[in-house]
């Protein structure tokens, strides 16, 4: 029994949410509570299953828990799932965030709850699949399939100019990914009819081939990250999305882009990367500074956090471009950190929104008086977001910058370090406006502080913030071997 689970654990993890969705399809749509509990149960089950990965992960490089089965034989597509140190944590991050998001949604979603929870579960499977697939075609399937539930989540349950935001999110991402598809087809032929990543890694591609393919892949990932100047879909999507959507978007979906860079664009096309990295690193640094500056003048809380995401992911991309053990490990770690911190921020803003129905900073003020507990939690997350040592954000940013510094991108690292100052500026500015000072208006008065359900949502995130800040080695030691292999592959060229 155990062996069977161990061998099929990845399939189990991926398809548990989907199976949950299929079962959910037949549950009576009039009972909201049934869906809430069912979805929470399914996501928790997925999380528990994913813990199997953490416990039985052997701290080494290479694929683990791999499943390779023929699938579409005429097209050379395999049902190939595996995790390594990089994807392991992203999988766990996803399974970790989803129950939280579900629990949060309990209070936030009233109308059309059935569709909502089904979409969440489908999205869950999509995200997990994208992180686990090691067959490019399979990966692409999940990569695209993810868009639909997210699109609906924004479009149906969002607010404001949600149609524009959802459509822009969808079309923008799709434009990038279709070109990647062509690149994948080319590599498929080049590898003699295989989509397996491991077959692609040993290909001997010419420089010009690498260039075109790198371009196609990177464009797709860069949109998803997003790298400046391909970012304008993000603030809109974040602002109009429902809180749960924002949490997933910031927590997991943006990581798809950086994950794609680590998994595909960089290792597959090392020569092209070798020529392109200063450009991308520059864009990343521009993103850090630019994102911070623009965040500084936002009037909407969610927009502010969205722009801060651009800056944070700029760090991740910079770390990936510096390409040494420290910076890469830091970058992968920072993906997780950003997932936790930004996820928590959006969650908190969501909780605020359910109370006040406004996102404009100007409408707030003096919340620290009325909502002391909420304020405390928000401050902790804020300091994680501005990378205070002792929190998770610091470890990631520090490793990225330290690694970048001793690569040949040290000048970039210096400029990027300015982001450390700027992040404090915009976040504290926002905190000051929202929580301090006198109360903005009487309308904010009868607010209730965090309830038990909300505590249950936010507490795991707080624990992660501190744990990942003080004992990062638990995570790093699993990431590092995979990164090391990558660095070695590249230095072999």
């Amino acid at each position, binding site marked *: 029994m155990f062996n069977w689970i161990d061998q099929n654990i990845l399939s189990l993890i991926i398809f548990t949410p989907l199976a949950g969705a299929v079962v959910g399809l037949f549950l009576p749509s009039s009972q909201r509570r049934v869906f809430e509990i069912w979805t929470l149960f399914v996501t928790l089950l997925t999380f528990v299953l994913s813990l199997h990965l953490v416990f039985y992960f052997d701290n080494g490089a290479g694929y683990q828990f791999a499943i390779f089965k023929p699938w*579409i*034989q005429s*097209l050379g597509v395999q049902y190939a799932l595996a995790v390594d140190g990089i994807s392991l944590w992203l999988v766990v991050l996803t399974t970790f965030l989803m129950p939280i998001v579900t629990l949060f949604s309990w209070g936030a979603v009233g109308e059309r709850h059935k569709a909502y929870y089904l979409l969440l579960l489908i999205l869950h499977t999509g995200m997990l699949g994208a992180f686990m697939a090691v067959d490019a075609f399979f990966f692409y*399937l999940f990569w695209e399939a993810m868009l639909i539930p997210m699109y609906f989540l924004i479009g149906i349950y969002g607010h404001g100019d949600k*149609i524009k935001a959802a459509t822009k999110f969808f079309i923008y991402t*799709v434009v990038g990914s279709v070109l990647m598809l062509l690149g994948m087809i080319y590599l498929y*032929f080049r590898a003699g009819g295989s989509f397996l990543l491991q077959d692609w890694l040993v290909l001997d591609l010419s420089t010009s081939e690498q260039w075109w393919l790198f371009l196609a892949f990177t464009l797709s990932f860069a949109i998803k990250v997003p790298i400046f100047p391909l970012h304008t879909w993000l603030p809109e999507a974040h602002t109009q999305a429902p809180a749960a959507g924002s949490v997933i978007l910031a927590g997991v979906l943006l990581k798809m882009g950086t994950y794609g860079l680590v998994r595909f664009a960089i290792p597959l096309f090392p020569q092209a990367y070798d020529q392109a990295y200063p450009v991308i690193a520059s864009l990343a640094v521009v993103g850090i500074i630019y994102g911070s500056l623009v965040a500084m003048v936002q009037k909407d809380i969610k927009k502010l956090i969205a722009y801060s995401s651009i800056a944070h992911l700029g760090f991740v991309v910079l770390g990936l471009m510096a390409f040494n053990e420290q910076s890469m490990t830091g970058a992968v770690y920072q993906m997780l950190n950003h997932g936790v911190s930004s996820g928590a921020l959006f969650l908190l803003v969501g909780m605020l929104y359910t109370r006040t129905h406004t996102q404009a900073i100007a409408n707030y003020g003096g919340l620290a008086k009325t909502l002391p507990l909420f304020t405390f939690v928000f401050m902790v997350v804020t300091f994680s977001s501005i990378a205070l040592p002792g929190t998770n954000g610091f470890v990631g940013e520090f490793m990225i910058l330290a690694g970048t510094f001793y690569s040949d991108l040290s000048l970039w690292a210096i400029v990027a370090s300015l982001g450390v100052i700027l992040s404090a500026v915009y976040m504290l500015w926002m905190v000051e406006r929202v929580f301090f000072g006198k109360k903005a208006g009487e309308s904010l008065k009868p607010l209730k502080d965090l309830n038990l359900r909300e505590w249950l949502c936010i507490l795991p995130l707080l624990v992660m913030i501190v744990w990942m800040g003080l004992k990062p080695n638990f995570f790093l030691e699993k990431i590092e071997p995979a990164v090391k292999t990558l660095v070695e592959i590249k230095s072999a060229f």
Partner: protein
Amino acid sequence: MLAAIKNSIFPFWPLLVLLGGAFVTLMMGLLKGRARILAPALSSLLVLALSAYGFFEAYFLSGSQSILYSLAVVGVGILSVPMFLDYFQAREEKVPEVFSLLLLVVLGALVMIGTTHLLVFIFGLEILSLSLYVMAGLRREDLRSAESSLKYFILGSVALAFTLMGLSFLYGVSGQLDLNLMAETVIAPEFVTLFKIGIFLFLLGLCFKVAAVPLHFWAPDVYQGAPMPVTGLMAVVVKLASFAALLKFLFFFYLWEHQQIAGISLSLDKFVLFLSLASMAVGTLAALRQKSVKRLLAYSGIAHGGYILLGLSTGWGQANELMNTSDAVLFYLISYAVMSLGVFTVLSLLSRGSQELDSLEDLKGLSKKHPLASAFLAFFFISMAGIPPMTGFMAKYLIFKQAIYQGLWGPTIFAVLMSAVAFYYYLVPVIRMYFQEESSSSVELPKLPLGAQAVLVLLILAILGLGIFPDVILAGF
């Protein structure tokens, strides 16, 4: 004796069954009450099912591909019966004759798919077209229906004239009407140009039927006027049959070109590629601004035709790639048929009564009024847009793969970009249904009958099945 009869009849079994069935069904219009429309519907179902019986035994068709196309056509015929039944049952004027016309359309399509004889092909084409001309005008109270019928008829006749002219050139030059025989004739050098013109005129006639740009102008107008299920039939069966025929004929023409028969150089691949790019561009871009669902689907059909043509422009150099190409085209057509049938079925079911559900505005807030229908419709539209794991994606993927293999980078990049743009207009109905609130003019919408629901679920399973396990079709050949 019986065996002899069987042997002589069996090759034509499907045609005979359909023809006879059409007559019987026509006569059932004499019945009274509910049976007046139910009986023809059931009988047409029976006839279609019976006709399929003969496909694998001995058929006048050549090649397994033709069998599959025929099966697809018959399948579409069967699955569209509930759509016709529900649509016409709800109308004051029941028009039971429509089922007999449906059978004739299938009959025509089968002939088109099966034959290599040009004249026989024209017969098939005309049986199909004439039936559709009539069907397009069935909504007599609606002027646009009449306009649609008339337009279709006039333009169809013009196209037919050119096709026949091409045919006469070919016959005049080669003295043959069967392509297999024509391939063996030697063409005198002075007639080569005429022969080429013949080929092209013939092909252009077919391109008219598949609504390839720049011969597509009829499609949006005709689609819009015709009754909803008839539009569906046009979108599905006509495309299936015409593309199958086009594939078959191109196969011959390419072969001649390839073998340098009579020194013919036609650059057919370039010609097809041109049609393909034009179709993709025009279909996609024009669809962006449509306010009518039917017109939107017409343009989307044109764009889909563009992708199929992209597939048809590749792979004629090598024999094994030829297989892959025809596989890809077959897969695309079947996927397209399934998805379109789904869309039109839902739309037909919602269009019962005097009012057609055609304006995109009418879809506003549909998801609240009619969650099930909206979910079905959204699913089909999203599949058409080409999102995995639905088959719309797999179909496009196979075409792109063929094109990349042939090194057609430019056209393929153009195609994928167009498909990305296409997402926009496929999302428009979804936005209307799900993201926007109900418009003021709320129409009472019917519930989906169980039979139709079964069909729709079947189609969804087919879409997912084809998308996830394409080997079902691909591995067979």
